[in-house]
């Protein structure tokens, strides 16, 4: 008789060691996004069970597959998914046990293949609820006769040691792999003393914390993300090489951008415009049009501030590409079915008052705030003077841009105001000229 995966329900403690072993063996990933072929769960409060493929003799999945992609491996008896799979997902509906799945992250059908004849789940099961044995196993009903390797407590401890975070275990492999020699484990903080005639403060900005805009549900609804997160999702080196939404890895097809999140908003204490959000949102919208050509993209705005060189043309280009621009501030965001979200807004251009629209991913275009740490950089009691909004003040912005309240100290970039990259670069160039001039004059006067 061939070996089988045999499950004994009253031994299972739902510790999920089996799931993790499965996802690791198949994908080298411990993350939740790597879908395991075996699933442990608790139902009716205290019944613990593991659901694993029965490898049915007359398998419905195999019968329904239009391309014959599910093939039984005679060596193990497992039905395996082969490369001729066309992802029609018929098998997932056909399985009476729900043991065959579509994994949206890896874009493939996943099912148990007995790990080629040595199932990892059985190997790691600490209570021997899952065993890899010939059927019928003589001892299966005589639970008491089998020695448990772990108690329930130990089993849970063992499973919980994994933090499910792909965090550093200090194995040192990265040090070897990094071509730029950028990783050091033995670095210690050290103080370096530098004597300088002039200082340029370019400590940048702080991002608005989207949690503070509570009616947008950031942190509460997984498919409400910030534009910084979206930037990662549309970058050329994005995770899993595809754009997907956080809750279930699905490719979003109806995305909303909510402009002025944390800007031009006295309710969260920032009356200023952040200058960059309109343009980065339009950029992301254009990139999304490339990576998800069928997706609808809507940008909710108050005013589109495409004021820089070439910006207006870029905005018009996005309109021509089919990005919807809806004038109206978003009032609140609420969850609906399937992880989707309902966006409540005032339809100003359409004139139809308060409206709501469903989206499957909402991007909050968060604004810029001053980095107030900059004000206290100098320890000898000299505090950099701040403007009314807590940015470092340029004491004579028109004629002496970048000059601060401390002689010889200059600011560059977003330390003194929200700025986009071209303006930050120009500002930095001005700070360099100011600092050089200051030093030159200092030396000349000595």
């Amino acid at each position, binding site marked *: 008789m061939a070996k089988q995966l045999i499950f004994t329900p009253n031994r299972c403690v739902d510790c999920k060691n089996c799931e993790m072993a499965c996802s690791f063996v198949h994908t080298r990933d411990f993350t939740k996004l790597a879908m395991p072929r075996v699933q442990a769960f608790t139902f009716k409060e205290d019944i613990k069970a593991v659901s694993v493929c029965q490898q049915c003799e007359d398998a419905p999945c195999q019968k329904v597959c239009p391309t014959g992609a599910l093939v039984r491996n005679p060596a193990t008896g497992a039905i395996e998914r082969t490369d001729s799979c066309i992802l029609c997902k018929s098998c997932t509906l056909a399985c009476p046990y729900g043991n065959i799945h579509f994994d949206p992250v890896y874009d493939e059908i996943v099912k148990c293949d007995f790990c080629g004849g040595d199932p990892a789940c059985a190997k790691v099961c600490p209570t021997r609820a899952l065993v890899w044995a010939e059927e019928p196993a003589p001892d299966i009903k005589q639970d008491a006769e089998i020695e448990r390797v772990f108690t329930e407590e130990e089993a849970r401890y063992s499973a919980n040691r994994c933090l499910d975070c792909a965090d550093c275990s200090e194995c040192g492999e990265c040090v070897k792999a990094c071509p*730029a020699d950028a990783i050091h484990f033995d670095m210690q903080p050290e103080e370096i003393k530098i004597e300088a005639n002039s200082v340029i403060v370019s400590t940048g900005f702080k991002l608005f914390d989207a949690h503070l805009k509570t009616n947008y549900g950031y942190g509460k609804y997984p498919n409400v993300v910030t534009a910084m997160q979206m930037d990662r999702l549309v970058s*050329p080196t994005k995770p899993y090489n595809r754009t997907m939404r956080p809750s279930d890895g699905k490719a979003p097809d109806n995305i909303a951008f909510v402009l002025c999140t944390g800007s031009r908003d006295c309710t969260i204490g920032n*009356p200023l415009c952040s200058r960059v959000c309109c343009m980065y949102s339009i950029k992301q919208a254009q990139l999304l049009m490339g990576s998800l050509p069928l997706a609808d993209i809507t940008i909710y705005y108050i005013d589109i*501030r495409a004021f820089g060189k070439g910006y*207006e043309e870029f905005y018009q280009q996005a309109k021509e590409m089919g990005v919807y621009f809806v004038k109206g501030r978003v009032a609140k965001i609420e969850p609906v079915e399937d992880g989707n979200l309902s966006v409540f807004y005032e339809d100003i251009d359409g004139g139809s008052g308060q409206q709501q629209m469903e989206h499957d991913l909402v991007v909050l275009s968060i604004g810029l705030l001053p980095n107030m740490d900059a004000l206290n950089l100098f320890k000898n009691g000299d505090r950099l003077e701040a403007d009314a909004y807590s940015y470092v003040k340029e004491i004579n912005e028109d004629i002496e*841009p970048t000059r601060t309240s401390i002689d010889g100290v200059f600011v560059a970039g977003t330390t003194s*105001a*929200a700025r986009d990259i071209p303006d930050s670069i*120009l500002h930095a*160039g001005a700070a360099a000229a100011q600092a050089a001039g200051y030093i030159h004059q200092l030396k000349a006067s000595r």
Partner: protein
Amino acid sequence: MSDKRRIGVYVCHCGGNISDYVDVEQVRDAVKDDQDVIISKNVMFACSDATQQEIIEDIEREKLDGLVVASCSPTLHLQTFKAVAQRANLNPYQYTQVNLREQCSWTHRNNMESATEKGIKLVRAGIARTRLTEPLTNIRIETKPRTLVIGAGVAGLRAALALADLGLAVFVVEKESEVGGWTKKWGKMFPNNRLGNDTIEYLLEQVKQRENITLFTDAELIEKGGNVGDFSIKIRVKEGETVSLDVGAIIVATGFDSYEPFDGEYGYGLNGVVTLPQFKEMVDKSNGSLNFNDHQVKNIAYIYCVGSRQPEDGEIENPNLYCSRYCCSAAVHTASCVADIDPNINQYHLYRDMRTYGKYEVMFENAGKKKSLFIRFDDESSPEVEVSNGALIVKVNDALDGGEEIEIGADLIVLVTGMVPRENESLTNVLKIPIGLDGFYNEIHPKLRPVETVVDGVFISGTSQGPKTLAESVTSSLSAVSKSAALLMKGYVDLEPFIAEVDTDKCVWCGECEKSCPYGAIEKVVCDTKEVATIIPALCKGGGVCIPDCPEDAIEIKGYTDQQIRSMIDALAKEVA
């Protein structure tokens, strides 16, 4: 050349920019066994630090004597990879950049197979050229510690001061008889209400205190020769006199023109329809109350985006597609000034998007608090100006109120006009710097090199580059100061060695080349009793006009020899197996 070469080839994905349309793996494999190719690799981003390091290690380990990177345009990254070669002790002139992005993937998005084939040919041409490269050395020249600033507006004057404070001599050339440009004409300017005239007076006073600034008014640049670090220029000063100067760098600060509406554009030409600068002058000069035609002004309507953000397919010929950046802020600031004069004046702002960016948002808020009403109109339904019973009326569909048509009676209609590039054809021709689609002078790269132009040593600043506020103009002019001072204070500049070279065996001195050279860079010398041509390196531009004029085929441009070009053509013409 029969010598065996050792060439490394790197084919870049550019994160999909190339690899989405060109099969970069196929390109890599196609050339990996080609003659003299030691390494053929794919890289995700050739310009990334990690890949640069990888290339350097490959060059050192495999003792490569030639490098080909197939990535983007040389304007973007030629210098990057020349520096990579240099860091690996490979002569930078044995590097060839193949433009697989602008000239291949981006231009052939619809046909991957053909794009890949073209890609292979382009890379082979690059390899062919690299095979024939020889180490070359830069030509070093001394820089002149002097800068020419063109334009004595706020940007030009501030740049002159900063340069002078760095110990560099400055010549400022102003076309008008007075300095100060637009700023001098204006009263209170946003955001801090300082008078424009005060700003100019202050700067001019400072300029006068510095001995190393020479100011020419009523003057014009008429000639520019030489090259970066050592330009020889000619300025026409009063009464047909000219002055010749040697400078190391040039900063262009020629400013902008205000948009002049055409007759009938939003009622322009009617009594009471004025541009923003005209209105600004009225407000600046008002004394206690705002009057027009001897009547106290009660109602003002502002129409925004006049001359800016014009539709591409509308009736206007050569529309200004761009946003003029400063006008929203300037208009709401002016409205606040009006409210300070007479708080009872009703002010209606007809706008499309209120672009009071950053901290200027506060001025928008303030205007709202001071009895300004904001009415938004759609791009498709512009306001209309009419005269009814001798009074001005604006009709507009209020987008904030469901598109309902409203009529506003106004004593004054202010057309919020934008900035347009200054008409300056003769100067542009002298400087030979490029103009962008919007008509303003074009920088090399808005983020990476925002004040540099394709002409080395010529920098652009202020509104000559695009619409800016006063503070932004000064910021950009100081940025140009940084660039030109860094260039001049180093004391020397290295020029590329792509100049002509005479084969003295072939040359019979017929003098044809000397006649053809526009720079006077060729002269006769005696070499081993034979009369031959010789090249003066500092004057030769590598233009190559002498080459076809030479009956003996005795002249070549270093780095672009006939043999190299022929080998590239051969490689491009050869079928991909």
